[in-house]
Structures are given as C-alpha cells and as structure tokens.
C-alpha cells in the first residue's frame, strides 16, 4: 500500500527534529544526570555531590531562598492576578484588547531590562525611592533583598498569571450563575459551590507554572545582584561560568535537584487535575 510506504518515508522526515531535540534538550539533561554522580573533579563515582550539597549550609540556603522567593512571588502574583483577570473577563472591546496586549508585552519584559527598570525606579538612588523619602514612607526598603526580589518576581508573574487565568475565566458561563440564582443560591454560595471549584484546576495549573517559572529563572536576580544573592540557579551558573571556581559535576547535582523539584510539581499538577471531579469540560 502506498500509504504505508509514505508512512515509512514520513518517519524518516521526523529524523531532523528528533536529532536536534535529542542533541539540545535530551543529551544535556542526560549529561547532567550522569555527571551529577561524579565527584572529586570528575574522578570518582558516587553520591558525594548530593551529600555535599545537603550538608552545606550555603547550598541549603540557596535551595531555601529559591523556594521562598518562588512561592511568595507566585502567591502574590496569583492573588493580584485573579481580580484583574476577573475584571478583564467582565470588560470587553478595545480596553480589554489593549490590556491584553500590554500584559503580553510585560510578560516578555523580564530579565536584565526589567532589573534595570527596577533599579532606576526602586534602587538605592531610584526616583521612586527619592519620592518616598520625601513623603517619609518606605524607609529601609532594599531592592537587593529577598523582599525586593519577591517584588520584582511578582511583577513578571502577574501578567503571566492573567494570560493563563483568562481562558479559564472565559470558561465560566453566565448561565451557571443564573441557574444557581434561580435555585436559591446567592453570589457567595455560587462562588463557593460552583465558581471556585470550576476555576480550581486553572488556578492550580497556573500556580504551578508560576512557581516553575520563578524557580528556573535567573536573569532578573543575576542582573540585579550581580550573582551575589544566593539562589539555586545563580549557584549553578557560578559553578559553570564563574571566575573563581568551576565544578560542572557539582553544578550537575544542583541542577538535578532543581529538575527534580520542577518535575515533582509538574507531576503533582497532573495528578491533581486528573480525577474527573476537577475536570470542567465546557461544551
């Protein structure tokens, strides 16, 4: 059959994609996985790297800081994005379009330029800081602290959360609220029994993406603190391209810890959404 012949040829055409994906995505990960078990400058096999990381206060702090900033900024981003997404969902026309376009741009406005913009606004000599000083509020604010990082992370989390939550909100149908209303449920009961449960998979999924996004990002913090703030990604980067001391094997072990955390939350998300209960299929 010609179709089967074509099918075999098609399989061949997949080769370039598979090869590139393997070379640039799978192989590096495999390399990291394998080499994370090589210690003593790559001379010995074993779990020494992991042991070293878990016993080191410094690396434990890096993991803790990464988790802390990711969780706080994801929660803050989510809490601020929810009402915004809801209002946006309720609006229509040009204003909605404009807000979406700007959210899209700001979601891409992260990393080095964002760090610079924040320094100009809120850095030690930032113009907003000068203004706040004159008004005698906000003393002791430090952009280069954990709080400063949470603030700047939240900034790029909010538009992302809005863009991710909006489709879920569009899935909430007016008739559900009307039907609930006719059956005697007020606004509160509607949100408690229908609105929130229907949105829940979307909220959880968005939260996971925000969290993973914050865990994996590096540019913003790196540009802001010049690699001085102790984060997991910054530690990895310093171990492979720093000036002082290079240890790609230790970097690999740190990387595997990061990948493990990210895979864990991704799987948790899959697992939470899987049961039919939370699956809101909208016809």
């Amino acid at each position: 059959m010609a179709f089967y012949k074509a099918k075999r040829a098609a399989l061949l055409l997949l080769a370039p994609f598979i090869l590139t994906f393997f070379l640039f995505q799978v192989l590096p990960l495999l390399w990291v996985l394998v080499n994370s078990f090589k210690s003593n400058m790559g001379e010995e096999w074993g779990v020494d790297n992991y042991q070293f990381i878990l016993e080191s206060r410094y690396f434990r702090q890096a993991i803790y800081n990464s988790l802390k900033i990711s969780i706080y900024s994801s929660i803050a981003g989510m809490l601020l994005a929810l009402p915004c997404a809801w209002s946006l969902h309720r609006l229509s026309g040009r204003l909605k379009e404009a807000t979406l376009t700007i959210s899209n741009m700001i979601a891409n406005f992260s990393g080095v330029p964002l760090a610079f913009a924040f320094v100009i606004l809120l850095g030690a000599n930032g113009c907003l800081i000068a203004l706040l000083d004159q008004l005698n509020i906000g003393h002791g604010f430090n952009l280069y602290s954990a709080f400063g990082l949470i603030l700047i992370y939240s900034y790029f989390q909010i538009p992302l959360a809005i863009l991710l939550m909006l489709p879920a909100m569009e899935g909430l149908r007016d008739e559900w609220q009307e039907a609930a209303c006719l059956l005697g449920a007020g606004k509160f009961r509607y949100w408690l029994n229908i609105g929130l449960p229907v949105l829940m998979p979307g909220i959880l999924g968005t939260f996971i993406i925000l969290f993973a996004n914050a865990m994996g990002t590096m540019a913003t913090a790196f540009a802001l603190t010049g690699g001085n703030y102790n984060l997991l990604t910054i530690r990895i980067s310093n171990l492979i391209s720093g000036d002082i001391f290079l240890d790609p094997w230790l970097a690999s072990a740190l990387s595997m810890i990061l990948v493990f955390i990210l895979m864990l939350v991704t799987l948790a998300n899959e697992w939470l959404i899987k049961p039919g209960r939370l699956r809101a299929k909208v016809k």
Partner: protein
Amino acid sequence: MRRSNSIGHLSVIIVFMSIMMLPLLGTLLYSISTSWSSGMLPDGVTFKWYKILFVEHRFLQAMMNSIMVCLGALILTLILVVPTAFIVFYYFPFLKPFMNFIILLPFAVPPVVSSVGLLQIFSNDVITLTGTPWILLGAYFTVALPFSYRAIANNMANLNLQDMLDAAHLLGASTFRAFFTIVLPNLKTGLMISLFLSFSLLIGEFVFANILVGTRFETVQVYLFNMKARSGHFSSAVVVSYFLVIMLMTILAGQWGKKQ
C-alpha cells in the same frame, strides 16, 4: 447577563495598568532626562542618550546579533516543527500524547541546567560550538519549541487534516503537494502569530546567551548586562529601545490575529 463596562471592573484594570506601566514609564522618563537627582520629575529633558546610543557601534552590533540569532532560531524551529507536527497529526496521531509530553521538557529543564550539559557536550576537540552563535540556534530551538508546537498543533487540530488530504488526493494532488498548497497556507495565521510572540521571547533570553556565548557574540541582553557600569540614563535608553522591539512584535502578532 449583559457585559457592561462597570465602574468597578474599569477601575481595577486602570489601577492595575498604571502600576504595571510604572517601571516602563520611569525608565522612559529617565532615558530622556539630563539628570534626576530628587523629586517627582527629572531636572531637564534631552535626547542625548539616544544620540549616543544610536551611534554606538557595539550596541548596533548587539541588536543586529540578537535579531540574526532570533530569526535563525525561528527559521530552524519552523523547518523542524511544521513537518513534524504534520507527520504526527496525519500519519501517527497516536504520537500526539507523546509530543505533548516532550514539549513539557523545556519547562522542567531551565536554561541554566541545559547550559551545564551543553557547555560540556559542545566544547570538545570534535565540535566546538560554544562561544559561537551556532549553539544558540539549537538552544533557542528548545526555548521556542513548546510555544510554536502548541500553536501549530492547535491550528492543525482545527483543520480536519484527514478529510482535507483525502479530498486533495481524490483531486489528484500528492501528499507533498497538498502539504505545500493546502496545509501550509491554512497554518499561515497561526504561524505568524507564534513567530512574533516567540521572537519577543527569544530576544529577551539572557542565560543561554551569557553562559554559552558571552561577549564573543554579544546579544542585546548581554550587552545591556555588560553596560551596567555605565550611566543609568544610557542603559535606560537601551531598555526603552529594546522594549520598542518587543512592542512592535506583540502588535504585529495582534494584527495577524485580527485578520483571521
């Protein structure tokens, strides 16, 4: 219930927009001010930072480098992803869940982790790609892959590929020909939107560019990072110029979306 632009929702959005625009507006203002020591407003307005910027060879080179490498990576992504998506959807639909899984990998493996491996794999005696823009093409392919595959796959799912190809075959077209004359034109809008959005995404990439290539082939992000010792007004002008590129891309994507 009719949707009305009620005051409450309107004010939420306006407050939100104002806060989100604040860093941008601050940077814009800073980039056109002579100096800004204290107070609400800068001391004077000037375009001198832009004048300096637009004749600086290193900046123009960095912009050029960024655009070249992003375009290259996007072309590579398209060449690899479009046929793959078509083959998966038309010949091997049972591979769809597998594809959906593997495009999640870039999310679970952040650039800094991939860099650890890439740096070792591509800097040996046989192939030395590190320090050259070529390695960025491959690395950026993995960054753009999830978004472009999603966009293309969603588009294909709406096409009813099987019937379309059957009809084309009955009318005498080969699969190869049908792909170019029927499938591709139908994907055009989705492709263009994903191209513009991926472009903004890639031009904002810093980690790969900094670790794998560094100053030997400076992208605009790396350039900006290396300029941190220069005047804040000057780097503000870089930030604003960079943002204008993102804005242009987003608006272009929006325009293509509307055409549909």
